[in-house]
């Protein structure tokens, strides 16, 4: 009986030792894995910051291009002068306001992006950034799409609705406005890229 007790005790110690040994062997691997994951996320965060600054520049360019769009034609009649300005069309006013909001948001989100670089594994700032970036995509796309519809109409007119193509007279105004719309679409593309980057960085490896 003593012999069998001794045998059981030995078996128990061996299994306990095995359990004791296993975590020691396993410990280095997750730490190394974590460091690699954090490094990847930091790289993604730096790229995110660069894209964010470019998107802010594009949005600022679009806002200023549309906001300073104004043309006065060299001929005039006795009663009025032929003038085109961005606030003649309410859609363009909406464009300027919306792109200004997007520019301000992008500039204000740079500190959050820097926080993501400094703490690559934190999920909360990234979630906030994805939420606000999605809203910014919506706002910028809506401004760009609405302005693009009006610009298309200004270039081509519409015979069924009897709408005249004003671009044939106000060429400089038209060019400026079209350039602003292109700038806003560049901002949208960059913002979509930012959303996907944040999603990739949120992945837990």
């Amino acid at each position: 009986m003593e012999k069998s007790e001794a045998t059981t005790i030995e078996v128990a110690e061996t299994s306990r030792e095995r359990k004791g040994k296993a975590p020691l062997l396993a410990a280095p691997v997750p730490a190394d894995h974590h460091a690699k994951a954090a490094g990847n996320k930091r790289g993604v965060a730096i790229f995110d910051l660069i894209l964010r600054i470019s998107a802010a520049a594009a949005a600022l360019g679009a806002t200023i291009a549309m906001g300073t769009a104004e043309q006065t034609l060299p001929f005039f009649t006795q009663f009025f002068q032929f003038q085109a300005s961005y606030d003649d069309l309410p859609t363009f006013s909406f464009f300027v306001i919306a792109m200004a909001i997007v520019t301000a948001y992008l500039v204000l989100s740079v500190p959050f992006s820097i926080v993501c670089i400094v703490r690559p594994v934190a999920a909360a700032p990234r979630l906030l950034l994805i939420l606000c970036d999605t809203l910014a995509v919506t706002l910028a796309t809506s401004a760009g799409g609405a302005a693009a519809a009006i610009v298309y109409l200004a270039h081509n007119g519409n015979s069924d609705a009897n709408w005249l193509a004003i671009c044939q007279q106000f060429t400089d105004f038209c060019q400026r406005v079209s350039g602003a719309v292109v700038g806003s679409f560049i901002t949208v593309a960059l913002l979509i890229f930012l959303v996907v980057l944040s999603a990739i960085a949120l992945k837990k490896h």
Partner: protein
Amino acid sequence: MGGVEVGAKDFGSGQKRSGVSRGVAVLDFILRLVAIVATLASAIAMGTTNESLPFFTQFIRFRAKYNDLPTFTFFVVANSIVSAYLVLSLAFSIFHIIRSGGGQKSRVVLIFFDTGMLALLTAGASAAAAIVYLAHKGNTRTNWFAICQQYNSFCERISGSLIGSFGGIIVLILLILISAATLSRR
């Protein structure tokens, strides 16, 4: 006995977590169905516009249809594309419900396409909204006449079809947020 108790506790919290994520995946599926209905309704409402005014001259027939304005054609096309994409992405959604450990890579792909479709839908909806605004108010500076004053039912139809589209936009935003939140929890 102690070991068995600890094991039971772990199993319980893991089951709870998978229950929450399964509920979220079901919510994702339902929201996708809602968005399909909304965008499809918008496309159909805009696509079946056709109003003829009761008077006509010898040469012109006064008629308004959605493809008289290329922006509305773009609106119908965009809504149809988003609708078709959402139907295809239902497969992904079902996959996420079944495998509640949910593939991370498939979620990132889903977020990518969802954001692209959000941009397409918003562009179409806001372009159509700009033209609808112009049709209601006209513009004195550019001498553009407000066609809504004559084509009443056409105007009502095109204004109403915007609602479904904007509803689809909101649902798509929610879908992106749900996918992102699920990604960060895993």
